[in-house]
Every structure is written in structure tokens, then in C-alpha cells.
């Protein structure tokens, strides 16, 4: 069995640490003697039999690709024995691994049959080696992941307060929503009346509202001041229609002292006292 010194210090495993009598213990003692107080801590420090095996291999500078099975198995069993003497609850995996190591060791002692035309039979250690290396790789990966900058630990997300007090979120309404609402109304009612609303009528109604606002103070207004010739004939006509409609609905009062005298218009009813 070869025993090569393959790994430098950088390959040394992250030694578990423990405190014994208040003093930090950086690594397992070489002779595998484990101070009783530290044992429990060490047991917890290993993530399982593979981790323990890797530790033993790396600590003794064994070649993981050519493991001296007898030596490794002995050390492993010693360790497990110490744990059992301490009556520590030993995870089943440790015992399964012990059995596996002994099986490999015994197979190593048997001559390997070579069949004609075939490659050399598989090394009994192959599967163990593969698992150890894969686990070691993952251990390294875990360490590298942990070293990467991590949100919340090594850097913080920037999330500036969004000031909403002045620009409060309000429902958005599109003109189409109104048309849809109207359509819904029509459908519901199957219309008791003829709710034909044309663009023209809308204009009239808009001017009705506008005129009522203009007359809000309840004062008389001269008829011509309600018209804005600058906006064109169509608007003049619509404004006039609005005035007629308002008169018909008794919302405004139109008065003329005598023919050709100025025509006055004013809102009917109380002025907008409540509006304030």
C-alpha cells in the first residue's frame, strides 16, 4: 500500500474547532485521543461518515486515489469506538460506513480475477473514492458559495421610500369605461325610454353645464355675453340650443323688458350657498 504525500497545507480540511477547558482546540489530536469534553463537539463538527473519512485521509496526508484501506479502516473504527464508549448516539450512517470499509478491505485482500478481453476488474475502492471526491467537491463548493457576497449579509438592496402622500393612487377611468358602463345600463334597462345620446346632444349638455356654472352667482347676465363668437358658428348654435334646453327644463330664466331691449338670463333657484 502506497502512502503518498499529495496534499499541501492548502488542502488541509477546515479543522473543526472546539473549546476544551475554555481553550480553543483547533484540530483533532494526532493520536486520535479525544478529550471527553470535546468529543460531542467534534461529533457535531463532522457532517457524516464521508466528512470524517475525508478528515482522516487529509489529516494523515493519505492519497485519496490510493487509499490504504487497512490504515483508514483502523482509524475510522477507533474513532467510532471512542464515540460508542462515550455512549454517544451514533448515527446509523457511521455504522453502515464501518461495514462498507471492512468489506472493501477484505476484497482488497482477494486476488482480482482478470477475464480475457476485459479490462482490469474494478478497484474495490473505486466507489468509495468517487463518493469521497464528489463530497469533497461539494464541500468546497459550499464554502465558495458561502464566501460569495450575499444580499443582506454583504450588501443591501436599495429601496428608496416611494413618496405617495401628494400623488395618491386613484382609480384610473378611461372614456371607454364610461361607454361600457353606459352600454351596461342600456342592456339592463332594455330601455324604458329612448336613451339616444348623440355627439350633438352631448355638446348641448356640456354647454348646459357650462352655462349653469357661468350663471352660478344667480345674477342676471346679458344674453350676448353667454356666447363666444370666436369659437365658430357651430358652438354658437350649440350654446343657443343649450340655453333653450335650460329654459325648457326651467333651469334658467330669460327676461326681456321690451322688444329689442337687452335680453337677460339668470339661474333659477337659490344660488349655490352650499357649494362653498
Amino acid at each position, binding site marked *: 500500500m502506497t502512502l503518498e504525500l499529495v496534499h499541501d497545507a492548502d488542502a488541509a480540511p477546515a479543522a473543526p474547532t472546539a473549546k476544551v477547558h475554555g481553550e480553543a482546540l483547533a484540530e483533532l489530536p494526532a493520536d486520535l485521543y479525544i478529550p471527553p469534553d470535546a468529543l460531542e463537539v467534534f461529533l457535531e463538527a463532522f457532517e457524516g461518515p464521508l466528512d470524517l473519512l475525508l478528515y482522516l485521509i487529509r489529516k494523515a496526508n493519505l492519497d485519496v486515489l490510493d487509499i490504504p484501506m487497512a490504515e483508514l479502516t483502523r482509524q475510522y473504527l477507533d474513532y467510532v469506538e471512542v464515540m460508542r464508549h462515550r455512549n454517544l448516539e451514533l448515527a446509523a450512517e457511521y455504522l453502515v460506513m464501518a461495514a462498507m470499509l471492512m468489506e472493501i478491505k477484505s476484497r482488497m485482500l482477494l486476488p482480482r480475477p482478470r477475464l480475457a478481453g476485459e479490462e482490469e476488474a474494478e478497484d474495490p475502492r473505486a466507489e468509495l473514492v468517487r463518493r469521497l471526491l464528489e463530497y469533497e467537491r461539494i464541500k468546497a463548493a459550499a464554502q465558495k458559495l458561502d464566501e460569495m457576497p450575499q444580499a443582506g449579509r454583504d450588501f443591501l438592496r436599495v429601496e428608496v421610500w416611494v413618496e405617495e402622500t401628494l400623488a395618491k393612487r386613484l382609480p384610473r377611468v378611461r372614456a371607454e*369605461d364610461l361607454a361600457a*358602463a353606459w352600454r351596461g345600463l342600456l342592456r339592463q334597462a332594455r330601455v324604458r*325610454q329612448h*336613451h339616444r345620446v348623440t355627439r350633438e346632444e352631448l355638446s348641448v349638455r*356640456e354647454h348646459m353645464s357650462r352655462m*349653469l356654472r357661468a350663471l*352660478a352667482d344667480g345674477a342676471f347676465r346679458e344674453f350676448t355675453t353667454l356666447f363666444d363668437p370666436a369659437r365658430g358658428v357651430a358652438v354658437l348654435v350649440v350654446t343657443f340650443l343649450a340655453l333653450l334646453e335650460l329654459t325648457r327644463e326651467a333651469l334658467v330664466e330669460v327676461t326681456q323688458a321690451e322688444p329689442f331691449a337687452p335680453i337677460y338670463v339668470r339661474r333659477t333657484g337659490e344660488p*349655490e*350657498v352650499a*357649494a362653498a
Partner: protein
Amino acid sequence: MLSPNEVKTVLEAALLASGVPLTIADLRRLFDDEVGGDTIRRLLDELREAWAGRGVELVNLASGWRFQTRPEFQRYLERVNPEKPPKYSRAVLETLAIIAYKQPVTRGDIEDIRGVTVAPTVIKALEARGWIDVVAHREAPGRPALYGTTRAFLDDLGLRSLDELPPIDDLVASLDLAAPPADAAPALDGTSPADASPPAEPQAAAA
């Protein structure tokens, strides 16, 4: 020891990353209290000036300093905000539609068209939004308020005038409602008394 510029960089990073306002005492802790409160205050003022004209500003609140977006940028930000904007209920939308298309109308008119009572909260919601207001009172028992839409309503909907509301006469046609009943009355006549009452006394108007 950090230079004033380095201190400023740390202050900026801390304030940008903090979800809550930070007091001067908090900010001093960034430097293990090795930078004085006055220095920090001065650097905060410099920072505030440096951020002028950006979409985010540094403000001094009762509870400390914090970065916050300027309200003017809210309209952009809410477009990416996954949060759903609130929606008006059907009652509010229908009421608004009736006021928009049939103004000026009273609450009674709206109820006639909708066939249900209109809760005062519905009208209030639209008034609070500044989209409708009382344009007059109808000369009828109880002198009900007549509602119309406002300039703000047109602005908020991106319309120049009510003409730009989607026409709905073609809709009526599509619903086979084109042929009006022979005695078709204007939609709102139900509540509108045929005989107009005489005008009221002119009175001082409320501003």
C-alpha cells in the same frame, strides 16, 4: 480616518439602503461615533444639494433623514409597480357615465336610469375626485342638485370636450333600440316637472 468625501459616500449608501429614516445618532454609529454630529449634518446638506433635480430627494423628517422619490415621478413609477391600481365600483362608473352623457342630472335621474338607489358615497367619491360638481338645482320639490362633469374630469380622461367621449348612439342601434317608442320622452323628463316654477329671488351668491 475617513475623508469628508468618504464619509459622505457612506452616508449616502446607508440612507439609500435604509428602509426607515435615520437620525443623526444612527448615522454617527456608522462611523463608531468618530465623526461629529455637526460634520454629519453639514455633509447631509451637501448631499441634499447634490441630489437636487433628480428623481429622488434627501429629506429631513421628524424621525430622521431619508431618501424618497419626488411626488412628480409617482406617475412613472406606478406604471411598473406590480400593485394593481384601485378600481371604481360599477355603481360609481355607471353614475359617472350617466352624469357625463346626460348632464345636468339629479340623483333622482341617475336612480331612474340605473333602476336602483344611488348611495351618497357614490356621489361623494366622484365629487372628492373633482370630476363632478353641482352646477345648479332643479326647480322641483326638494330642489335637487344637478350634477355635471368638470374640467378636471375632461383633463383626467384626456378629453378636450365631451364630444370626444365615445359615441353611444351606434351602440343603441346595435342593441336594436334604434326605434324609439312613439311617445319617446326625453330621458330625464320623468323627474322634471313640466311646469317650470318661477325664478327665485336673486340672492347674494356664495363665492
